[in-house]
């Protein structure tokens, strides 16, 4: 089955992003296809490459990045949510004259159109961290 995820929660604040990660791994292990993981609102913080976690905690940002790379997932952060929260790629940082790019390069920055596209092309869309 083709499944997409929408993630609303920031890592480390609420449990939703962790639940989503575990769900995503289990869905892949069961042979389902993950069409897209869409990070919306505070969920975009999961794509922040500048986060630093204590050594004795699971680095959820790194865990997402490695899952996205390992399975070549289409991971998209909502551009409107991301800009407000300082999750920028090099293009956006230059466009808005900000001092640093912060998005993990395995993630794309795009619009809600990508979320609609995920709805159209998936059998199921599951929301986490609402």
């Amino acid at each position, binding site marked *: 089955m083709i499944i997409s995820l929408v993630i609303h929660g920031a890592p480390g604040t609420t449990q939703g992003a962790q639940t989503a990660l575990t769900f995503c791994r289990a869905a892949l292990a069961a042979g389902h296809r993950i069409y897209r993981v869409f990070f919306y609102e505070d969920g975009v913080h999961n794509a922040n490459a500048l986060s630093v976690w204590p050594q004795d905690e699971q680095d959820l940002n790194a865990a997402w990045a490695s899952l996205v790379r390992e399975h070549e997932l289409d991971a998209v952060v909502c551009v*409107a949510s991301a800009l407000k929260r300082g999750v920028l790629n090099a293009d956006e940082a*230059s466009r808005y004259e900000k001092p640093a790019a912060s998005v993990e390069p395995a993630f794309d920055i795009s619009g809600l159109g990508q979320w609609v596209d995920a709805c159209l092309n998936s059998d199921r869309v599951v929301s986490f961290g609402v």
Partner: protein
Amino acid sequence: MGNAALVLPDGRRITLDQDGYLTRLNDWDGEVAEALASHDGISLTPEHWVVINLVRQFYQDFGLSPATRPLVKYVGRHLGEDKGKSLYLMTLFGGKPALTISRLGGLPRPANCF
């Protein structure tokens, strides 16, 4: 990289972002619209102006930069069904009319690129 700027005939310098939207919405006036349009190779006629004023009214009314379909309906409602067609707007403003008209009208850059 610095942002682009528009220099008006009176010497005013208007800063734009990389996609040609105004950095400061308050900079907008008729001359700015004329200069933005001529940069796009469009010479503004009264027909253009009616539509630009309508897109500004759309933003005033709803707080949204319109997508094409709602803008077309809105234009049709105000100017008549013969003009409430995307072809009419494309003839005046070219390919992606809602984006162009919003930009010329000094609306904020749409939060989500579709």
